[in-house]
């Protein structure tokens, strides 16, 4: 489209394309959220559901056994089998939001429940955490009581985000050395320079330079995981508590390492206590400061997880409100608007995670 086209036409075209993309994004949820009996025929995942019978038991994301043992209740459109509103919410919404061993690509249901690795070393740990533990939920709840590493939907999308980030950054390297970067290298370099000069180095100081690769990688990784949840048929791996817990664990490790490299192991812990307070106060302050070392990464974890899950939950809830087709006229524009908000939140949360990790690392490096 040449610049001779008026700005009104270009604006209209842009709105059309964006609106079309977001509407396509919502079609899978629209098809699946309708609890009418005809949904079983309409939804393209019907063969996936019959395969998902044993998968419902093997679902690793801590579905309690009482609910997971009825496969029909876990599939679309048979809500209320567990009783009440909770059953409807679980039956219709849950597999959009939590991890699952099956997911759909266009016209292609993908069933992952056979894709698993036997881990005999963890059998004892699995037995002791039988009832479901959100941080060890990657263990398959197999009826034979053995521990497996189950490949799940979030793991697949996390790996896809990993591949995307690697490809993007390798492609950006080609114009890395030149004075005027071109193409995707330009984009990546602009983002990296902004993060480095406005967000990370002002907060960590010049001693934070060795940790730059971590901050930049974590930003792009979280961003791509968040954005993959917005494309049609995609799901964001950061909507899984285990994934954000892993990221927060890496941030925690970085904070400790940064503090210990700057001040030594003893100095790192001694620096938690502020100067110039009377010594009895230290008895109260020391445990609080020590706990604060753990609550900061915990807050990072839950903030990212909750932001991503809440966005998808609201959209799923709006789709679930469509009990008669005419309601779609009201619900879909609202869901599209919330999808736009979610796009903003995806970028914002990646930025906030990076920035807060930089701030906390700087706090450990420069103690008062």
């Amino acid at each position, binding site marked *: 489209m040449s610049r001779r086209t008026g700005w009104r036409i270009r604006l209209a075209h842009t709105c059309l394309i964006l609106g079309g993309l977001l509407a396509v994004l919502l079609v899978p949820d629209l098809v699946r959220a309708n609890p009418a009996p005809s949904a079983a025929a309409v939804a393209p995942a019907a063969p996936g559901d019959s395969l998902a019978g044993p998968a419902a038991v093997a679902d690793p994301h801590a579905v*309690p056994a009482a609910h997971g043992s009825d496969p029909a209740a876990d599939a679309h459109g048979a809500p209320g089998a567990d*009783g*009440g*509103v*909770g059953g409807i*919410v*679980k039956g219709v919404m*849950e597999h959009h939001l939590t991890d699952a061993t099956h997911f759909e690509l266009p016209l292609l249901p993908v069933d992952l429940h056979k894709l698993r690795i036997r881990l005999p070393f963890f059998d004892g740990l699995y037995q002791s955490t039988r009832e479901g533990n959100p941080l060890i939920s990657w263990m398959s709840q197999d009826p034979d009581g053995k521990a497996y590493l189950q490949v799940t939907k979030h793991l697949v999308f996390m790996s896809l985000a990993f591949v995307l980030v690697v490809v993007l950054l390798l492609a950006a390297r080609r114009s890395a050395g030149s004075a005027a970067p071109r193409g995707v290298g330009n984009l990546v370099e602009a983002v990296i320079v902004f993060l480095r000069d406005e967000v990370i180095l002002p907060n960590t100081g010049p001693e934070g330079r060795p940790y730059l690769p971590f901050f930049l990688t974590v930003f792009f990784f979280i961003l791509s995981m968040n954005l993959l949840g917005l494309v049609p048929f995609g799901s964001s791996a950061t909507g899984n508590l285990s994934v954000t817990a892993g990221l927060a664990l890496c941030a925690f490790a970085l904070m400790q390492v940064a503090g210990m490299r700057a001040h030594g192991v003893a100095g790192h812990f001694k620096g938690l206590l502020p100067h110039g307070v009377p010594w009895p106060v230290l008895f109260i302050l020391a445990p609080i400061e020590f706990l604060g070392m753990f609550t900061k990464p915990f*807050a990072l974890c*839950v*903030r990212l*997880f*909750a*932001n991503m*899950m*809440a966005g998808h*939950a609201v959209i799923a809830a709006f789709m679930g409100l469509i009990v008669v087709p005419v309601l779609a006229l009201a619900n879909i524009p609202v869901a599209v608007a919330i999808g736009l908000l979610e796009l903003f939140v995806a970028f*914002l*949360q990646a930025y*906030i995670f990076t*920035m807060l990790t930089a701030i906390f690392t700087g706090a450990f490096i420069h103690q008062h």
Partner: protein
Amino acid sequence: METIGLIGAGIGAGLVSLGAGLGIGRIGGSAMEGIARQPEAAAKIQTAMIISAALIEGVTLFGTVVCLLAVLK
């Protein structure tokens, strides 16, 4: 028992949104005042506003996740 849990979840989610609205509204208001007083500091004020809003929203979503857990269990 499940009904009481659901009622609690609903009320809790509403209260959580109330808290977030109050908090972020105050941040927005102060940011507007600051920008009105000193338009050349607008970029810095806007950055600080977005950061504070995201932090408060984090706390909000802690509560929302608890309510969601109450519904889904």
